């Protein structure tokens, strides 16, 4: 067992408890049991792996994600508020570069929140996307998201 992973997870769950109880100190009895229980369940469901995610990669991804979701919100908001609807919806097919598993799931969910894209399905290595405006540079956006996920999960060989 990876001792560092256990310490990190215990601290994270304890922090979550502290936040959920709004910092009150009178419930740490229940809290301790809950944290232990959460730790055991997390170790069973997702055992620690040797490759931990990259912290700088995660930060980089978070910044990318935040700025893009603001951009996406503004874009859709302008579309909805304009008196005449101006959109060019289309279905696109994209080739996935990421390996199956965690990374792909992450990409799909990220794309759903990024400007202009919603995933409608996946067949083999082909991702089907619905884009709200096909005049946008969807492919480069997707590649940017991909490269950041690769860096965060340390998938580059």
């Amino acid at each position, binding site marked *: 067992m990876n001792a560092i992973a256990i310490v990190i997870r215990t601290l994270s769950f304890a922090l979550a408890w502290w936040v959920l109880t709004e910092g009150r100190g009178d419930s740490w009895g229940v809290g301790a049991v809950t944290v232990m229980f959460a730790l055991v369940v997390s170790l069973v469901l997702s055992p620690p792996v040797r490759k931990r995610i990259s912290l700088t990669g995660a930060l980089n991804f978070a910044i990318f994600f935040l700025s893009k979701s603001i951009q996406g919100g503004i874009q*859709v908001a302008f579309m*909805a508020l304009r008196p005449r609807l*101006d959109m060019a919806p289309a279905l696109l097919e994209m080739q996935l570069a990421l390996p199956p598993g965690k990374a792909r799931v992450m990409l799909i969910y990220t794309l759903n*929140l990024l400007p*202009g894209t919603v995933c409608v399905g996946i067949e083999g290595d082909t991702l089907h996307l619905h884009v709200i405006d096909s005049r946008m540079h969807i492919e480069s956006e997707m590649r940017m998201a991909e490269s950041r996920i690769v860096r965060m999960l340390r998938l580059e060989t």
Partner: protein
Amino acid sequence: MTILLEWLSAGLLLAGAGFYLAGTLGLLRFPDVYARLHALTKADNLGLGLLALGLALQAESLALALKILLIWPLVLAASAVVSFAIARRAHELGIAPVGQEEEQP
């Protein structure tokens, strides 16, 4: 300083409400289920994020501020999963998206 925070917070709350309005309008005006998903997953989530940030700035304690902010990533994760589930099902059922029926500029 507190005055500045209050103005910042008020601005964030108002901006958040604006995105909520856009999300609702999008839900009512956009032509098909896919486009409406775009409106909800982008505009409403941003509205909630701004609102939560604005309220967190005024929270009495750090723990409470973090708790309010915690709601945002939870809702984001939830809507990412839900929008994929709904969009995929719609696609499987063969609901065709509305093509470029609006005039090109």
